[in-house]
């Protein structure tokens, strides 16, 4: 069977946090939904939140507290209309609610780098998968949200392993 060819560009959602950028690989998600088409529920005041979108219920991670915890200080969220990114996972769907404006862009795959080996496992466990230096001067972190679990209380930011 012939090997699938590796694409030369990576399609990502780009979030500007101020001093650095977050990139989410577009192919990590099967759909996005406008916040107005979703409903956020909390089973208990301290429990993880669930997002009802497209007729389905998903465990939900709020991206702003996650970004703030990892990369503080960051620019305040600027988007009145949140967007839910939906991820398909074997153990059940997951939604990631972004309250920050973003754009979808394509970046050359060859410009992405792994983190230095000594830090790689620790950062990967927190969802930091790879990086890119925009113009050599600005760090852009590609996040793998698949390892981020909804946390109690703040709606997200607990990683699968500590």
């Amino acid at each position, binding site marked *: 069977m012939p090997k699938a060819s590796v694409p030369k560009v990576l399609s990502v959602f780009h979030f500007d946090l101020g001093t650095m950028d977050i990139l989410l690989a577009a192919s990590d998600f099967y759909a996005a939904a406008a916040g107005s088409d979703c409903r956020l529920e909390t089973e208990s005041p301290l429990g993880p939140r669930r997002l009802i979108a497209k007729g389905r219920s998903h465990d939900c991670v709020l991206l702003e507290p996650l970004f703030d915890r990892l990369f503080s200080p960051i620019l305040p969220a600027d988007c009145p209309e949140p967007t839910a990114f939906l991820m398909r996972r074997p153990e059940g769907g997951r939604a990631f609610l972004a309250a920050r404006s973003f754009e979808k862009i394509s970046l050359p795959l060859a410009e992405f*780098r792994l983190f*230095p080996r000594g830090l790689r*496992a620790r950062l990967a466990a927190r969802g930091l998968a790879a990086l890119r230096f925009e113009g050599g001067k600005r760090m852009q972190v590609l996040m793998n949200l698949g390892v981020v679990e909804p946390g109690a209380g703040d709606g997200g930011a607990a990683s699968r392993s500590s």
Partner: protein
Amino acid sequence: MTSDELTKALEDQPEEGFDKGETRAETEGFFIFSVGESRYALPPAAIREIVADLEVFPLPACPPYVSGLINCHGKPHTVFDLKVLFENERQPTSKFLILNLEDDDAAFGCTEVIEIAEVPRSAVSAFSESDAENRFCSETISLEGRRIPVLSVGVIRRQLENDLA
């Protein structure tokens, strides 16, 4: 040379070993640099390159002595702040010593490159194992009336490994 001949040759050598008497250098080179007011030494072979004026990008979830990443020729390198490691104080630096590592990319922040000094062997001494303050150093050298610790890159990297485990 047969094993018998080797044994004989070894027996004829002074106690410290086969070739030490003939080839051991009288002096040893050390790369001397400063971080803030403190001076440190490294074997010159431990350093691949010195770079300057690079931005340090902070990283989450790292010990305080990892100040972040630098972009060195397009490759991210972990930056160690030795001042935090030794004195628990931050020391922003504008120079970086890129370490010569086979399996990782890392750098020490550095305030000033002082010199590469040829130090007589008699001026190099080992730390005692109980010297907890200098656990990141392999030995010390005496140079112009100063005692300068020689950093052990391996021990510093092991500390990071342990802290991230």
